[in-house]
């Protein structure tokens, strides 16, 4: 079993003539909290979508080493297969099943990788009932882990932004992942929620052994949480290092200081 969970090599993703990811290489160690930062439009979410099978890069390789040390090539795999292999994610704008309750949202994650039998579902034999019971227990355990037990039966659309993030994290964890990809988890949350969220993310890694890959704009949060960072700009990796190294890196400073002008150009 290698100690890398993600090994991304020379990935290029184009949409027509637009190059979204340009020869991106990065890796993540098992158990690492890794962050990807960069200005708007740098390709961070495209990277996430490529890692989870929603986008299909034209060049390069993405190797994910899941359970049992079996290496899996992500490119060309469908999103649900990637999820089954052990990659979970949250979305930039929370995507819950809004008309369902918090409990149901998480339960869907907990049971999605079980085999499905139409007859089993209709007859409700002991096997099916045991499976239901296990999913229920798992869901309750995860809701208490993220601190949403009290809101289990609330319609998820009525949750606050902070709670939606927790719900998405619980739903992702319910699929029993090796790595959790968080796309701007702190967006739209207040300072108190941010602190709780930081703590929750750290607990996901420490208590459940799930590696974390994070996109975030909130520098304070990133710098306090991440053990290592990659900086993307215009689809390319421009820097890599520990938070201290990144803070001192001239290329990063230029990208960020210059980014306000570039952002205006692009707007």
């Amino acid at each position: 079993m290698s100690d890398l969970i993600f090994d991304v090599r020379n990935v290029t993703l184009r949409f027509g003539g637009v190059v979204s990811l340009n020869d991106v290489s990065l890796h993540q160690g098992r158990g690492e909290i890794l962050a990807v930062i960069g200005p708007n439009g740098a390709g961070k979410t495209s990277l996430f979508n490529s890692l989870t099978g929603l986008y299909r890069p034209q060049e390069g390789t993405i190797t994910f080493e899941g359970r049992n040390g079996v290496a899996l090539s992500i490119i060309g795999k469908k999103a649900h297969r990637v999820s089954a292999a052990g990659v979970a994610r949250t979305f930039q704008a929370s995507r819950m099943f809004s008309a369902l309750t918090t409990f149901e949202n998480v339960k869907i994650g907990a049971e999605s990788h079980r085999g499905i039998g139409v007859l089993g579902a209709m007859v409700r034999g002991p096997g099916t009932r045991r499976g239901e019971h296990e999913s229920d227990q798992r869901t309750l355990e995860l809701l208490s882990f993220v601190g949403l037990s009290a809101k289990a039966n609330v319609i998820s659309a009525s949750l606050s932004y902070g709670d939606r993030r927790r719900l998405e994290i619980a739903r992702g964890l319910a699929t029993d992942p090796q790595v959790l990809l968080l796309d701007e988890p702190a967006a739209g949350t207040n300072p108190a929620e941010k602190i709780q969220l930081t703590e929750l993310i750290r607990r996901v890694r420490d208590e459940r052994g799930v590696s974390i890959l994070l996109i975030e704009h909130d520098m304070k949060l990133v710098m306090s949480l991440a053990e290592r960072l990659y900086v993307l700009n215009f689809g390319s990796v421009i820097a890599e290092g520990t938070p201290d190294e990144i803070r001192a890196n001239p290329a990063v400073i230029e990208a960020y200081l210059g980014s306000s002008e570039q952002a205006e150009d692009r707007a």
Partner: protein
Amino acid sequence: MAWWRQDWIRRLVTSLAVVAVVELMTGPSGSFAAPTTGLIGSYNERVSVYGLFVGRRWMVFLVLALVFFGVWSAWLRWGPRTRASWRSTMATPREMAARRPVRWGFYLVLLVVAGFLPHLVNDPYWQSVLVEQIAVFVLLALGLNVVVGFAGLLDLGFVAFYAIGAYTTAWVTGALPTPAPFGIHLNPFWAIPVAIVFVMVAGILLGTPTLRLRGDYLAIVTLGFGEIITIFANNLYGITGGSYGSGGTSGSHPIPHFSISLGPIHYRWTLAPVPYYYLTLVFVVLFILGFSLLEHSRIGRAWTAIREDEVAAESVGINPLKYKVMAFAIGAASAGFAGVVTASQSNFIFPATFTLQLSINVLVLVIFGGMGSIPGVVAGAVVIQTVSMYLIHTPPAGFQESDLYMYIGALLIVTMIFRPAGLIPSRRRRREIILSEAGEAHADEVLTGDVA
């Protein structure tokens, strides 16, 4: 405020306009040669309202417009209060109804009533309507509800599965020009499993390539599939009997009725509708039980997840294609059974039965009753089919059968305005509608556009 922008003026004008439309709709028809006949006729025609009032139609409708205006204004004034007090009086019964034993008791009573229904109506016309128009359409609506209501896939070609069920029955009982498989002519009872397996396979074959499409594209493709099946039935003269239907060619014979021969029990179904009614009722109950268990199982939740947000569903490990194909195949099963009943009961089948109009009718039942709600679609099918058949059987003055769909369309529009989630809405669907009105739920967009 300008006088014509006063609220009551608007209400009055709207009332007059609505009633004018109703007046024209229910009035005498024009024709292609004399297009104005309808307009002039509905103005001139003299009517008698239960002998109390004798006069021109437009006067009756003017009074109606004023009544409509009055009720509307009164509702605006006292409606909210009435509704609140109604809600508080109904709180206890509502709570009672939510309890499981009460609900099951209610369903049991309904089942008993359904059991006695053929004897209660006791009229040959209504007995055959019960089978051919109500039971069969309840089956079709239940099946389409799995596809449209549970999985959220707009299927405009549902009639195809009904047709495949009917033609499979004709085939295995030896009633088609093409010989039955292995030369064995089966009793229609054995056609039930065969037809159900056939339509489910057809669902998988159709679903696997097409269900990769979303929304409107899927609707168009399914529409095409429905047409293709009908056209096949029409044109493959040597196999299906073409437009003459089964039994249209020499050497073929009628599709037999069901018959049982089990030890001492011998029973033959005949053209009489009542025995068919009981047979169908048993299957309706079985399908209702099966589908509602599915709805509340892992599979039902996966369907809801896909309907709400396909990308998110995929990211938690649900394979959308697999579940959609499953919905197609499972929904097709009850339509296939409906096909067996139709074929066996009527002895002959014709391609002209399986039209696009039929697909749309079934969709109307589902939407009217409440997408995703099993009690809803059953109620929708019963109500709409009963009303339609009543209007056709005992047409009120001025009603023409060709106008039927116009009235059903109007009924559907009114229902969608006042009960957008249908007659008996499903809880999840009602939430979705409330949320989308509040701008909360996700549209079925492809990925959020964070493309660099």
